[in-house]
């Protein structure tokens, strides 16, 4: 399969982080995103989207990331929706 462009990977990682598939980057830890964790995260996203679980940021997966959706995270516990806010 054609290697995704660097920009796509960057957008993809942002999207996966926003919706809870990847842990938010820890400021103190200059932790590289392990390819295995990234692939697992993409697979879980593909399952939620009903796509073939390739684990790759292929074109159909990237296109799905632009589809209309609910703004809650898909994987909870990473970014729960309980915010301190005056109603």
């Amino acid at each position, binding site marked *: 399969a054609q290697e995704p462009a660097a920009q796509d990977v960057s957008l993809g990682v942002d999207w996966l982080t926003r919706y809870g598939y990847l842990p938010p980057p820890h400021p103190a830890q200059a932790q590289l995103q392990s390819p295995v964790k990234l692939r697992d995260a993409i697979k879980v996203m593909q399952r*939620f989207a009903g796509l073939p679980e390739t684990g790759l940021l292929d074109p159909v997966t990237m296109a799905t990331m632009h589809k209309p959706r609910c703004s809650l995270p898909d994987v909870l516990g990473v970014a729960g*929706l309980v915010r301190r806010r005056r109603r």
Partner: protein
Amino acid sequence: YALSGSMWKKRTLTWRILSFPQSSALSQDTVRTLMHHALTTWGIESGLKFQEVGSQGPIEPDILIDFARAYHQDSYPFDGQGGTLAHAFFPGEHSISGDTHFDDEEIWTFGSKDGEGTDLFAVAVHEFGHALGLGHSSAPDSIMRPFYQGPVGDPTKYRLSQDDREGLQQLYGKAPRTPYDEPTRKPLAPPPAPPALPPDSPSFPVPDRCDGNFDAIANIRGETFFFKGPWFWRLQPSGQLVSPRPARLHRFWEGLPSQVKVIQAAYSRYPDGRILLFSGPQFWVFQDRQLEGAARPLAELGLPPGEEVDAVFSWPLNGKTYLVRGQRYWRYDDAAARPDPGYPRDLSLWEGAPHSPDDVTVSNTGDTYFFKGAHYWRFPKGSVKAEPDSPQPMGPEWLDCPAPSAGPGNPKPPKATVKPGTCNCQCEINQ
């Protein structure tokens, strides 16, 4: 389905529409009707009721519905047409809990055939699922899938999928049956009893759950399991017992050796969710209900060879496993797959905890519970100090049983660990 970990304690919820969509062909009445039907979709499958309240009244509604655009004073700004369509806040005590926001820059439609616009009813059903405590689902026919799936048909006829129903009923139980409910399907035939096991007949009495004194207690996938001898009970997040009659251990945990008669501790391991059952100086690892591999020695988790365990639990704050025996506890780092150094430690670090607990669990809301006899000690989320009103009787809150009256038959709860300090003790022979 996925549960968010919070739920409403009450069964009647109030709602109100704070603002209506600015640029939509839908009238305000249509919007209110669609919201009513979207809530009813969840109500008819559970014991929940919904009541619209007016803006003048004193009641602050549980579910406040708002059409807002871009940044709107919460941490989840909308992004114009397309992209994110709406969101809702999970149940809780916070004023924003249950509130549901729709992106006012979408073109909200209803039942449109040409694929134009975004169907308000379908999105509302989804968001109210969040407002009731459900997370996103990956089930193909679930309304809780994260991506917009288009209109879902006539709001007065729409019914939740099985996945959505099961998630909802885990939290709020089934709708109370009405006389007109005719069972649409025959109840499932009970599984054939394998000949080797004695039948479940009254001649084989089952233990009484109201006696307490369980061998092990564990929170597994949001349900609380109470083990006693070769039996166990299951309590759903809604507080309902799956059945007042206990299930047979070896019929459920497939592969558990028949000579294992008592489970001394049990827990669901973080992060892979495997279920570990402990008996004697060994434990067994289960994936769902199937045994994975042979028995393993407790020494693997850092206990001295031959040592047994009273309680095991996983603490969400650090994801580590705690193993309690008598007045001491060990800690195991699952991520690093090795026991933590510097253990065992004294159990009094858990201020107020009883020694040799029957078991320890962490509830869906994050509180830690020590169980012993017919009582429990509650440690608020993240705290290692028992609530001052501990211990409390288990019966009423957990097992649908009356509170035990203290008496010879029901000894008072064991003294908790005493705080270290000077002691003025006169011990006389007759006291």
